[in-house]
């Protein structure tokens, strides 16, 4: 048996604050967990369920305004919250280390990378300057960054997001901690970068036997990284056990709902939302906290809080876990059948280029020699009546820029965009006739930013109705109620301000505003990336329903291939401003042809452990490249000499499926 004490253990831990009414609101409520050496635990759940608070408590920290009101947290048997501050300081960074969510903000912008890693060593070890210098290089090398000596002299802003995150990992590992805490370690990174960081963490933890606790909203990350999983809901753990058990055969209705709401690429399932939203802190229901949203709720659930009791492979906090029907993974999507003939194109994008021209002083006088860089280059596609077209790519691939170009917010450097009747969309918004403006509507990524915080929902919806349809007064009121009903919101929302709505509700209002114009085309820019997975599913379903029932075509931009796969009929993949593959959604995701699409598909993490992930091409660091030739050749595992000489054309490989690659055989 294990003789060493657990690395970290929480015992009936309760962390909360006192509300204005004088009541205790617990953010973390009665959580017990223990972690053995070398084991990794994933904390999953919607935002606001107490994951981050619990994670910080594991290093003896409570956020400002919060206090431990009950229970204890023990690191190797010693209670963290009773320890003197000096002892805690010595522990943190040395025995317990943390990788923050956004390394770019966690690194000091004015210090060189090397100096920042050195600081950790200076504080926690007795090494001399020369040894520390050596160690810094070792660490940078260990996180697989090129030329350590040179990199140590750089400043944080000279590194990419993925490189910064790796430096954060290097700093956390500087003194071989026994416990590594990860707070959304890969959120905000591209899928391919994410996979590389996770591989690295996994490998380093295996080598040194470090225990890890990882908080992530992305179950795919947890499935890839963790041995054990704890699902949290409203401050409590509702299910815990091995990843193989919890993620494959979840027992608690909430865990099941969470897993069903995730879009899956390889199994291609339609995500199902969890109705309702978590209870507000300080206003918890008396019995089971999930009772309000549970399909299987019974009287006992509303009266009595279920304890966490052991079940096969873990523990579940549900009175009726054993009586629930066996869990079935969301079923497969039928391969989308294309009926190409009856589809009328509503939008034609022909050979467009968009530049980020920022003319400097020299350019104005004709002295600048460099051509402006092209964010989008030679992109052509058509959008058909009533279809959803997914536009996928890493950050910087130009996908949002294309949307802005279609919306008239960025000028085109070349090419044309036309609606079906020939209306010219190459014009900027200021030059477009009102009717053309009406027919193309945008939905933005973050509803917090796209809804005016000082205007009520009524005022927000009134503008498009007044501008495009001349509606006001009662007629507008009737239409607004209809629009809200279409996005499944009640009429009572009309007089609220955006701040009184949840994130998902705000995005519904933004969608209602777009549909208020009665558009032909909806442009969606990462509309779900700011939302929880359970909410994301409902927004995706809503959009797909609305577009289908009204015959509105939609371009959905996303970095997440699985999200696009769930709703799109066709998918276009972008790399550095060029289309590299376009075709039916099922073909592109299940049988990708372009090496970059293959890498993207391979890097998608499914919320289930043990599924194969193709790491090969993804792990290739950018090398070579340069102007001329195929832009992907620097990362391509199958590059030919020809790829450096000529840009490949985008050519059809199957009906409705085209690829831009020298190595792909075309039908012609």
């Amino acid at each position, binding site marked *: 048996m294990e003789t060493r004490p657990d690395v970290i253990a929480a015992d009936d831990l309760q962390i909360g604050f006192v509300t204005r009414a004088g009541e205790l609101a617990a953010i973390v409520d009665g959580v017990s967990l223990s972690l053995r050496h070398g084991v990794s635990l994933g904390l999953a759940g919607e935002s606001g369920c107490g994951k981050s608070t619990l994670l910080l408590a594991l290093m003896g920290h409570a956020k400002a305004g919060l206090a431990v009101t009950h229970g204890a947290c023990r690191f190797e048997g010693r209670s963290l919250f009773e320890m003197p501050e000096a002892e805690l300081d010595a522990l943190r960074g040395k025995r317990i280390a943390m990788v923050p969510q956004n390394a770019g903000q966690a690194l000091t912008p004015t210090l060189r990378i090397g100096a920042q890693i050195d600081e950790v060593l200076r504080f926690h070890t007795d090494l001399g300057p020369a040894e520390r210098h050596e160690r810094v290089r070792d660490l940078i090398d260990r996180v697989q960054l090129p030329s350590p000596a040179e990199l140590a002299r750089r400043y944080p802003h000279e590194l990419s997001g993925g490189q910064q995150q790796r430096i954060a990992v290097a700093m956390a590992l500087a003194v071989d901690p026994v416990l590594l805490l990860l707070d959304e370690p890969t959120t905000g990174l591209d899928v391919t970068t994410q996979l590389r960081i996770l591989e690295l963490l996994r490998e380093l933890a295996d080598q040194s036997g470090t225990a890890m606790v990882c908080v992530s909203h992305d179950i795919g990350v947890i499935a890839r990284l963790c041995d054990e999983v704890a699902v949290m809901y409203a401050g409590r753990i509702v299910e815990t056990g091995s990843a193989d058990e919890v993620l494959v055969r979840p027992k608690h209705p909430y865990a099941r709902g969470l897993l069903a709401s995730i879009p899956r690429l390889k199994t291609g399932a339609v995500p199902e939302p969890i109705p309702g939203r978590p209870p507000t802190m300080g206003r918890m229901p008396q019995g089971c906290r999930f009772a309000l949203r549970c399909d299987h709720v019974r009287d006992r659930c509303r009266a009595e809080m279920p304890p966490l009791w052991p079940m096969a492979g873990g523990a579940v906090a549900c009175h009726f876990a054993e009586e629930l029907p066996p869990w079935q993974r969301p079923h497969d999507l039928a391969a989308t059948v294309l009926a190409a003939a009856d589809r009328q194109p509503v939008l034609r994008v022909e050979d467009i280029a968009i530049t980020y021209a920022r003319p400097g002083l020299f350019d104005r006088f004709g002295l600048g020699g460099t051509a402006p860089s092209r964010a989008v280059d030679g992109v052509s596609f058509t959008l058909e009546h009533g279809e959803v077209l997914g536009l996928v790519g890493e950050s910087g691939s130009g996908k949002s820029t294309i949307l802005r170009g279609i919306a008239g917010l960025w000028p085109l450097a070349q090419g044309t965009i036309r609606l079906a009747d020939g209306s010219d969309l190459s014009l900027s918004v200021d030059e477009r006739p009102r009717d053309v403006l009406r027919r193309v509507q945008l939905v933005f*990524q973050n509803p917090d930013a796209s809804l005016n915080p*000082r205007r009520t929902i009524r005022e927000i919806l009134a*503008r498009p109705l007044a501008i495009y349809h001349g509606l006001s007064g009662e007629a507008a009121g009737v239409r607004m109620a209809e629009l809200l009903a279409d996005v499944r919101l009640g009429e009572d929302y009309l007089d609220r301000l955006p701040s009184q709505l949840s994130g998902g509700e705000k995005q519904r209002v933004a969608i209602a505003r777009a549909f208020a114009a009665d558009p032909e085309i909806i442009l969606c820019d990462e509309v779900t990336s700011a939302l929880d997975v359970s909410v994301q599913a409902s927004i995706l379903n809503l959009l797909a329903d609305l577009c289908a029932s009204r015959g509105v075509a939609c371009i959905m931009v996303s970095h997440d291939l699985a999200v696009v796969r769930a709703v799109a009929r066709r998918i276009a993949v972008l790399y550095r401003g060029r289309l590299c593959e376009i075709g039916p959604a099922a073909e592109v995701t299940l049988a990708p042809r372009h090496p970059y699409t293959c890498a993207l598909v391979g890097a998608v993490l499914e919320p289930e452990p043990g599924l194969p992930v193709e790491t090969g091409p993804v792990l290739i660091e950018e090398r070579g490249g340069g102007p001329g030739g195929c832009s992907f050749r620097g990362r391509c595992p199958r590059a030919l000499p020809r790829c450096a000489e000529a840009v490949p054309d985008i050519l059809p490989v199957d009906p409705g499926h085209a690829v831009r690659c020298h190595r792909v055989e075309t039908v012609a």
Partner: protein
Amino acid sequence: MTAPAAPLARRRRLLPAWFRDVLSRPSGAIGLAIIVVHLTIALLAPAIVPYDFAAQDSKAMFAEPSAQHWLGGDHLGRDVLTRTLMGGREAILVSTMATGVAVLWGGLFGIFLAFAGRFVDEASMRMVDALLAIPWILFVMLFVAGLGTGMGVLIPILGISYGLSIVRVVRAAALDVVTRDFILAARARGERRSVVIIHEMLPNVLDTLAVQAAMTWSWMLLGFSSLSFLGFGATPPTPDWGLMIADARSAMMVSPWPVLAPMIALSSLIIGINLLSDGLAKALGVDRMKKSAV
């Protein structure tokens, strides 16, 4: 957040929520009380003062406080209490109206610059910087020397010079709003620029503008009193705090009350305004770091 009926009920209350928030804070409530007392005195002073402000009584020259003259008499034997009670009228009137001028032009110009192109914005801001580098009092004295000291001159001059800092602050706040997606959404919808400014922009900089207005008011009061002290503001025999301090300054060691009384009156009003602007800033959340998605 979850109570659906609450927002509707809240909107129908007598006082708007932000105002009740100001009153619920000690700084806001005390500041507002001080200001209200001062305004009431200024309004009612002609009716309640015991003497004529210009009446000279040789027996009361440098008099100590007594039952007849509660705060004593000044170097001409005028009643200090009467003159102190009356002394804020012109200062308050001028500073309030000049603040209005400053907020109006500063606010509008600040918002305009946020929408204007890079060149206009840069050029205007460098000009504002240059003007701010000149001590305002020189600036004002220059005009007063040329145009005289009437209210018709002082109000616009003070308003324009104090509006410069409002331009800076409002422009900064507006630049923060301009980049947000709802402005872009309004543009994409084809809204006219005036609608974008009034409907989308203005409500979002009003907080900043309100706090800035309160602060400007207190600076303006001090500024006008300084001008009076130097002889460029109120003209004798008008009772005015700045003027009173200047007149009685030389005899301060012998007879402190003619200096102390207007000083206390002026400082208390400035403290009151500063407390209110502090309460306002806290209630409106202007002093805190703006939460925004990076």
